[in-house]
């Protein structure tokens, strides 16, 4: 090995070591554990540990709650991600508009939910969504809509969680997209205007293509975040009513830390990993094709 190569390895050694110790080894350990029935009895005595091969995965795939959790999570991703990015983009466009007044106030206000602690937010939202006294139902009542039992009706609990997560998280992507908008050169808009493009056309042919790489980034990050949604149902509904708001991560938390079935919790983690990996690959493939 040449001196420079050695120096290079030495420089990356701390990072490689940290990744190995805190990432690679735990992941391999978790994969190994997912082939066992590690539980409270095995914690007492390793002789109680049984190797079950793919048993955990088989049980998992035949557990209705797992499929429900997966379906719930997919609903979240499919509805939540576009809504979230749409809200972020809309807010960023509004903030970037030349007509906007008190821009920094609005920017702070819309970013505030991101930095507010979720527990406090949950308390407020629980009141907003209250069937009898909630502001949301009051508003709907003014429009002549019957009160909705947001957190108690199996049909509406998930939309309520989606609403909360979108509201809580859109500010973050908004800042990223706003930075991207500010970097779009003004002459492009000028040229478009000279060619007679309307505002809508300017958005379609100038703004969105310029933002495309950022939107892809934001989409990948948001999909990953929504796949791993846990805290919102945890504080709002504890997975209820009738487990309609159990997400895959919530399911894994219960298996692992509540019931201490670490073997099957690890299996859940790997199944979720495979899903996210495939989803991200598809996203990349699609975006590459549209770019080409």
């Amino acid at each position, binding site marked *: 090995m040449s001196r420079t190569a050695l120096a290079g390895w030495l420089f990356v050694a701390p990072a490689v070591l940290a990744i190995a110790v805190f990432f690679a080894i735990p992941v391999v350990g978790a994969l190994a554990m997912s082939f066992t*029935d590690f*539980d*409270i*009895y095995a*914690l*007492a*005595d390793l002789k*109680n540990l*049984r190797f079950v091969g793919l048993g955990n995965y088989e049980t998992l795939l035949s557990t209705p709650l797992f499929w429900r959790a997966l379906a719930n999570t997919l609903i979240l991703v499919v509805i939540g991600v576009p809504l979230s990015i749409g809200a972020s983009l809309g807010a960023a466009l509004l903030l970037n508009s030349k007509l906007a007044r008190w821009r920094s106030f609005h920017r702070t206000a819309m970013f505030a939910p991101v930095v507010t602690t979720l527990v406090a937010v949950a308390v407020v939202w*629980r*009141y907003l969504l*209250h*069937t009898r*006294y909630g502001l949301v139902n009051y508003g709907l009542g003014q429009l002549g809509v019957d009160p909705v*039992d947001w*957190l*108690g009706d*199996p049909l509406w609990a998930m939309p309520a969680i989606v609403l909360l997560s979108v509201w809580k998280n859109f500010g973050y992507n908004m800042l990223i997209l706003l930075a991207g908008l500010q970097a779009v050169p003004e002459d492009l808009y000028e040229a478009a205007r000279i060619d007679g493009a309307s505002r809508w056309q300017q958005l379609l042919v100038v703004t969105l293509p310029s933002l495309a790489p950022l939107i892809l980034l934001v989409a990948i990050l948001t999909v990953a975040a929504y796949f791993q949604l846990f805290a919102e149902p945890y504080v*709002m*509904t*504890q997975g*209820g*009513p*009738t*487990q309609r708001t159990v997400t895959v991560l919530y399911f894994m938390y219960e298996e692992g*830390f509540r*019931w*201490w079935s670490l073997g099957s919790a690890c299996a859940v983690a790997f199944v979720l990993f495979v899903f996210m990996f495939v989803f991200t690959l598809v996203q990349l493939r699609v975006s590459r094709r549209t770019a080409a």
Partner: protein
Amino acid sequence: MNGRRRFLLASAGLACTSALAQQRTRLKFWAMGREGEVVRELLRDFERDNPDIRLDIQGLPWTAAHEKLLTAFAGDAVPDLCQLGNTWIPEFAALDALEPLDRQVAAAAIPREDYFEGIWETNVIDGRLLGVPWYVDTRLLFYRRDILAGAGFDSPPRDWSEWVRMSEAIKARNPKEFAVILPLNEYEPLVALSLQQAEPLLRDGGRYGNFRGEGFRRALDFYLGMFRRGLAPPANDTQIANVWNEFAKGHFTFYISGPWQIGEFKRRLPASLQDAWMTAPLPGPAGPGHSIAGGCSLAIFRRSRAKDAAWRVVEYLSRPQAQRRFHEMTGNLPPRRSSWSGVLEGDAYARAFRDQLDRVKPAPKVPEWERIAQEMRLVTERVVRGDFPAAEAPAELDRRADRMLEKRRWMLARAKA
């Protein structure tokens, strides 16, 4: 005082403390929630009388306590002495983490007969005593006297049929409100009703579920009947947002809850309603019924090297005097009958608890129980919400319970072989 004398005194003092420090036993004591906050004060006299023990008390939040204890066990960092919810004892017994206390109890002045039978029983696993009850908890009825009187009844229900009759009368007077609240995210009410039956919830030494048994079917049918007749709202806690507000508004008349709620009701209900509520023993199928034996025990870990010191703390905290003081500080109810004499006997709200505590039964003592109870709650919630046929619920519950008990059956079979 001149400088030389002061120096001498100081060095003598230093010598004393270091000599003491060598003899002093360090005792790590974990307690949860409110108990963790008051236990230091409670043990102040004990510390004064036992200078050879240095108490290291750590408070844990309830929400993290279970996880923290299991992690501590895995990481070989358990405390010497710990407050344990008595439903957790089977689990820690499976880990073989706890020190049997039969010998100490026999030698000490702790009369077993003085404790409420069902509560003591929760600490006995396979014939060995693994904890000493510290305070008790059970579930019974909190009710609105004024609403009940308005419907024409001057005493609370004693059995199931009376309970239904009163609830229907209340509902008839005010059809927009409900008579009972059975939050769908709590399994305790249904467990309490099931424990009133002669048949156990698990059979063959905790190897299989017994939900298809006649006893559970009867309890389930009564429970579901409350919803079917429109006497209880199909709602969970988060939907109600504030139980005390709703209780004050008369949204429901009967509420099944535990002793901590006495303090909450006194604090949170408006002054005008303070004479309008009362507690009553849980009605049973025929006359006053059983309820759940809950609460917390003090347990010593097997790996502790300060077991004698830990036992002295347990003994101190088990004295009626210490238990009465503990009650004054926290509102927790004492597990010994003799600790109840005095102030507690005069407390009108505690009286029903005193009565109920003579009729409490432990939930099945297997580590998997909490998970099975959770499944029971989930299936019944689906039945109440019309998502699952009621007739198939017992079989479904047995199927789920048997699957969870598979490892236990394997362990028991192997131990036998």
